[in-house]
């Protein structure tokens, strides 16, 4: 049984404008899924549907076999959640926030709480409003993981954090939860984070799943051919390459993104253009994101 499944999820906030329009995918135990999409693609909405905070208007979500729309309490008890917009009660002290979570989650691990508190170097007596953004997010992470959730939902968890805190934050999450086989679904606009953490990518676009594949496969499926401008190379010619999905002029050459592996791309380009002076590279995730989503309406 999958840990998390979305079946033909439909959700709109204005009638006729579906944010999610039949989203369909499953997450197995222990998987780390990077949920990608442009702003407004529905990543947050999907995560909130999994948490039972929003209800789908079509289809159904399931978390550990429980429908979050009908039994959100059972879901929330097994799930850890951190988001960029998450507001901890700023009038409480850190230790009071921890006491609140300790009482709310029966499986709270006091030892883990102590470890993390000392690792993050946060004063337990400090009020939340006195903490920096990074410290507050670390407290939120502590609250999300110290009850040893089986599923961790991270919605832009490192948004607005400096690179050092972001790395510390993400590595703590991975280290803590991969050991225990916890499943992670996280959304982020930091592609380097996604490449470091995720084993599988789900890309949302126009309310649907545009890409759902392992990160390695994904990098195998796309390549970028660098075509020199000399010899009459134009963007039009580049666009006529087999499997070409995008063309861009950069630094004295033309970059063509092909929907095929690096080796296949190189051969196809040489054959089509008849030029030997061609390089073909794998595409970084960020480039892939821009080419797949950036150019689409």
């Amino acid at each position, binding site marked *: 049984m999958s840990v998390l499944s979305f079946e033909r999820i439909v959700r*709109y906030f*204005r*009638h006729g404008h579906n944010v999610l329009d039949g989203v369909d995918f499953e997450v197995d135990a222990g998987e780390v899924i990077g949920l990608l999409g442009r702003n407004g693609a529905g990543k947050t909405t999907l995560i*909130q549907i999994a*948490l039972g*905070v*929003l*209800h789908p*208007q079509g289809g159904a979500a399931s978390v550990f076999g429980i429908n979050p729309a009908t039994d959100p*309490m059972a879901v*929330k*008890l097994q799930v850890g*959640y951190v*988001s960029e*917009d*998450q*507001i901890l*009660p700023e*009038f*409480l*002290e*850190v*230790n*009071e*926030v*921890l*006491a*609140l*979570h*300790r*009482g*709310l*989650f029966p499986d709270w691990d006091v030892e883990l*709480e*102590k470890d993390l*508190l*000392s690792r993050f*170097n*946060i*004063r*337990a*007596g400090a009020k939340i409003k*006195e903490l920096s953004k990074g410290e507050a997010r670390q407290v939120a992470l502590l609250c999300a993981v110290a009850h040893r959730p089986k599923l961790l939902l991270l919605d832009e968890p490192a948004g607005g954090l400096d690179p050092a805190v972001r790395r510390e934050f993400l590595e703590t999450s991975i280290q803590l939860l991969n050991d225990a086989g916890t499943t992670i679904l996280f959304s982020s606009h930091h592609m380097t984070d996604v490449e470091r953490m995720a084993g599988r990518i789900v890309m949302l676009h126009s309310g649907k799943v545009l890409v759902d594949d392992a990160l390695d496969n994904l990098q195998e499926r796309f390549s970028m051919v660098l075509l020199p401008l000399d010899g009459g190379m134009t963007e039009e010619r580049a666009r006529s390459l087999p499997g070409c999905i995008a063309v861009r002029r950069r630094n004295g050459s033309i970059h063509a993104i092909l929907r095929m592996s690096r080796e296949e791309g190189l051969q196809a380009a040489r054959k089509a253009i008849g030029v030997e002076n061609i390089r073909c590279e794998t595409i970084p995730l960020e480039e892939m994101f821009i080419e797949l989503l950036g150019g689409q309406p």
Partner: protein
Amino acid sequence: MSRTGLFLLRKDPALKGMLASVPIMTLIGLAIRFSGGERLLELSDPGRSGFAVFLFVVVWCVMLFHTVGTGFWSRCSRIAMVLPIPARELWAWRLVAVTAAVVLPVTGMTLALGAGIDPSIFMLGGKVLAVLLLLLAIGQNPFPKLFRIQVSAVYVVFLVFASFLALIYLLLTPATVVTILIPAALALLISIQTFLAVPRGFLLVPDRPGYPDGSPWWKWLDPPDLAEDAGPVEPEAAPETAPQLTFRQVLHWTLFRTLVNRLNIWLIGLVMIFISWAILYEFLGGQGAWMPLCYTPLWLMAHFQQSPQWIGSLAHLPIRRRLIFRYVAGSMLLPMLVGVLLSFLVAVGEKPVLVNLDRKDGIDLEVPFEFWEIGEAGNIYEAVAPWGERLQLPAYTIIGGYRQVVVNPFGVGEDSSERFIAWQQARAIQAVYGLSQTPDLDNPQVPPGARSRTHHRTWGLILFLLSIGLVAGLRFSLLQFRRTWARFLVKGMIPILAIPIVLIILAILIGPATGLTSREGIDVVPVLFLSRLAGSLEISGGVYLLASLLVLIAGYFLVGRTFGKVEPDPTPIKSIAHDYRF
């Protein structure tokens, strides 16, 4: 006015807040004046005991609103601070905006309370305004080099203390030109002193940590500098991190702070106390003012309609909705219960009667509206005593041009003899209580605890209908439809329902002068209609009361169920002064 000034004023949260506070305060004034009957109007009379309560409400509502809601402590926004505008200009425009935001709501309320009734209320309003401006000037004075006042515990205690002194001044001095000018002049002097002390550019923090910025006579208000006091901090060892509060205490404190401790809830709660008090007290006194019954559900519906936003920050936690609902509902039910309790306490002390001979302003024999009559316009209505003394009873217009009028058949006049008044009083008691009487002005034969079947039945029916309407309205206000037009309907329901109330208030304001309607006509007709309906149904007041209680109890669970399904709005709530908070 310079373009910079216009720009700063337009962006000022105090002025944006004023768009809400002016109509709210004016409506509160109108509500006190028109809907609570004469007893609530006494609150604005300096000679009566309710004066202190009135002042308390005005001063504290305004101060709280502008202190918390509009970033009172900021001399300019952090964004404006980096613009090439002199600090004095920034602060001057900010002061203009904050002053306007204090002056205009109180002016609106004073006008609503006093227009056409008693000019002395304007003097009183002027004194309240002058004192508020003085508090504003004092509150703005510390640390003039900083872009904002550093709000320390000492500063808050000082302001609270100053507010109490201001209240004492308001209570003990008469409302004259001199008592208005003294605080106003002081406010002006302090503002000039602050203005002169403002440098060319504001500082973000004091020059030297731990010290104020050179305003010597405010040094005792110096807030502790956190950075200096704290020093290098070692993380506390985990075993020592046990909080003082237990889980339950933290949970309930969090729910209270998140769901109840909001300025608008305190303000609505305060109004609820007064409305509940007014409704019950007026019912016990026979002069049932029905209008608060109309807008009480609207307050509650507005309160519930906002709740999805409040619960957004708690949505991801496994806290049962039932518990959250108790806080959301309780924050309104509790003030209503306090109002009811207050009303009972006052009623026990004053022992109001349904037939009341009022000699305060002239003479009037007040009977519940259910015992008034509807007559034809143009006819002459007379009360004729057995010995031949007669009185022409005044007929009050219901709607101008409409042929029917309302008449109090038990009316008495200035020229009526004591015998006639006693006769009318005996007739009224007989009609209201069903008790046979021997006319005796000083000793009406009404045993303690006597009840009027008609009055109780009518108000029982009103309460029953109100309960059903309230439960239906609350459920409707929580519905989250998928269709845009349906969602618009839910959001627009409250303004739509408020329109008739505003029209009735307008009719009360301009009706008597234009002959369009009369206060009596508006007060009596709905009660009389419901009285007749209750009479035809022949159900006792006790049964209605029981049925209302059952509806309200069932409604609590029904609304709670609907509340349990409400999707929280996870968007963080931004106050109008969001940019002014740090």
